[in-house]
């Protein structure tokens, strides 16, 4: 006997939403956002899977719907009703199944990092998503590795840990031992993510852009495009492998900063195999109660990483704690190069101007604003605008100008930085070269890390090569 509609519906967790009409991708996304904004993200995986929808599954919906509707062509009314009951339930299930690890999770991360581009309410809601993405089980991992490295992929390894030791927003990392004996970290991407991010980002653009009409419209569009391009870069592990190689060359002769070796023969666009570095992430490092000297030493290395990569026209643009390792021998490990800026000549010039800008020399500030923020004469005559920009530059330079070691653990310093940044956003003074979207993210990311580390660093003792201007002193 076929179950009745109410029995079918009762078999699954309650869902108060009205049926979502598949009018347009943007409307669907708006529906999802409204859905997410109105209630907390559920904790249990079953409920979460039920609640969070994903645009990508609309493909499934469309195909399934077409296929199943074909069944009804010659049916009488009663049969049609019965079959459509099943169809509706199935469609609803499909609609609620999202690529949790996909664009929404990735965008959630991005949204939290770029308050100047994405409205706060959406950012807050999305930002919570990526923390509890379920891990991929080994059966799925095995299929993915078979697809990427070939059916004989197991022959490449002496051992392969079935449980991941780290999660990435769009994949996870397993420890393994290559046939040649090297211990490696194998990062594996969730299936289908690359294509869904692109599609979902287009849909997000469709929703967000109308909200941002105004004088900064073009700038916001460009900044949004910069984020899209970076996400595209982050999902291409071959590109990440190349960034790792470039960074490794930068730090080849540095005994204090280590970048893992890439094993290119075991890499694809979705699988990245690198040397495994044994070390602790910041929270675990802090749990060992390191002394101040050790904190200072790691702080100096974090800063050196930043400056040396800039000199090589790169930027470690996602300096969050998961991307660094604190090794027992005192070395700092850099382990994630998905989010790395490669500056064009024009961007490098903008970076140089920002290094040279000095709030005590007004012309340097005006030059920076004219050339990198498209500031007009009217903007430069606006005292509030100029004042905020000077605040920003002063804050950036504060640790450098400080005589002796600067205490990055000073909460007041970080608070001041977030203060001017918040005022810039509130006043919509966000027009700037798109490269500064990630540049500013890395500034705040790095300062936050140094704050948590409680490091004190004397800039005068840092071996930084002055590439921006041999005449002027350090920034």
């Amino acid at each position, binding site marked *: 006997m076929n*179950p009745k509609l109410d029995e079918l519906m009762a078999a699954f967790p309650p869902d108060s939403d009205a049926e979502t009409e598949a009018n347009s991708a943007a409307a669907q996304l708006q529906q999802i956002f409204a859905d997410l904004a109105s209630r907390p993200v559920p904790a249990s995986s079953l409920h979460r899977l039920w609640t969070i929808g994903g645009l990508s599954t609309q493909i499934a919906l469309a195909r399934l719907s077409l296929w199943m509707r074909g069944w009804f062509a010659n049916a009488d009314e009663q049969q049609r009703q019965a079959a459509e009951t099943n169809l509706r339930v199935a469609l609803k299930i499909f609609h609620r*199944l999202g690529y949790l690890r996909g664009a929404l999770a990735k965008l959630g991360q991005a949204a939290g990092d770029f308050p100047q581009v994405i409205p706060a309410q959406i950012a807050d809601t999305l930002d919570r998503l990526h923390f509890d993405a379920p891990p991929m089980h080994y059966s799925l991992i095995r*299929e993915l590795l078979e697809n990427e490295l070939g059916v004989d992929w197991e022959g490449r390894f002496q051992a392969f840990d079935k449980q991941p030791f780290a999660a990435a927003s769009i994949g996870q990392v397993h420890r393994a031992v290559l046939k040649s004996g090297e211990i490696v970290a194998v990062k594996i991407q969730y299936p289908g993510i690359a294509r869904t991010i692109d599609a979902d980002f287009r849909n997000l653009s469709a929703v967000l852009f109308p909200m941002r009409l105004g004088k900064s419209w073009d700038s916001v569009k460009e900044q949004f495009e910069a984020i899209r391009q970076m996400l595209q870069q982050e999902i291409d592990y071959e590109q990440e492998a190349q960034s790792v190689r470039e960074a490794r060359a930068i730090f080849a002769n540095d005994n204090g900063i280590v970048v893992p070796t890439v094993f290119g023969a075991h890499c694809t666009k979705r699988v990245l195999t690198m040397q495994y570095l044994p070390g602790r992430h910041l929270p675990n490092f802090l749990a060992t109660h390191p002394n101040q000297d050790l904190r200072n030493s790691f702080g100096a290395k974090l800063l050196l990483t930043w400056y040396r990569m800039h000199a090589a026209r790169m930027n470690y643009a996602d300096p969050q704690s998961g991307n660094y390792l604190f090794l027992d021998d005192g070395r700092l490990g850099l382990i994630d190069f998905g989010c790395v800026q490669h500056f064009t000549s024009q961007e490098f010039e903008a970076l140089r101007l920002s290094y040279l800008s000095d709030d005590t020399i007004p012309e340097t500030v005006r030059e920076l604003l004219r050339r990198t923020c498209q500031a007009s004469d009217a903007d430069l005559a606006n005292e509030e605008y100029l004042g905020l920009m000077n605040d920003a530059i002063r804050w950036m330079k504060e640790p450098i100008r400080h005589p002796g070691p600067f205490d990055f653990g000073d909460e007041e310093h970080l608070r001041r930085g977030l203060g001017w940044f918040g005022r810039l956003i509130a006043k919509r003074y966000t027009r700037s070269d798109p490269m500064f979207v990630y540049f500013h993210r890395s500034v705040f990311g790095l300062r936050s890390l140094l704050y948590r580390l409680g490091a004190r660093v004397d800039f005068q003792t840092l071996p930084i090569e002055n590439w921006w201007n041999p005449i002027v002193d350090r920034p």
Partner: protein
Amino acid sequence: MRITAQAKTATRDRILAVAVELFREQGWENATTRDIAAAAGIANGTLFNYFPSREAIAAALLEEAMAGSDVEFHKRRTGNESLAEDLFLYVWTGLKSLRKYRKILAPAADAIFSPLAQPARQEAGAAVRVRHLEALGQILAEHGVPLPLPAVLLQLYWTLHLGVFAFWAADGSPHQEDTLALLDRSLRLFAGAFLKEAQ
């Protein structure tokens, strides 16, 4: 003249082999039982001694592939799988075993599994359904889920399974990776529902 069991098996295998070729070359819609009989070198009436319909031929192909996939499923199992992982492994191994028939199976499955199919066609699909659900029951029992399952849950599972099947048959993504993701997600959901039942 008596036909030996061996000869019967050979004829049956030949019918299946030429049917696959014809489905592939002419499409499910255009390949008739008459064409299949002719290609197999037998009379039309003889073919019906083996398979009462074209759908029965497709169902036999499905069943054979499924038998192979059962062996593969047990081979690939490590014994430490969660319920969601076991379900994933079982269904995906089944789909992989059908890969060579992927292009021809979408329309065939439509004819076999539709709830509105004619009784004879439903019968062809029923064997596949029963076999799949029996294996499902065995997996669930191993994970402590009490049997029999409520009819509602089974109905939903089978509906969703057909949806995944349809999606897979038309999946143009590399290595059908979109199906992998969809299957992973949907089976996590069902594993949760089954385990809730166990509680």
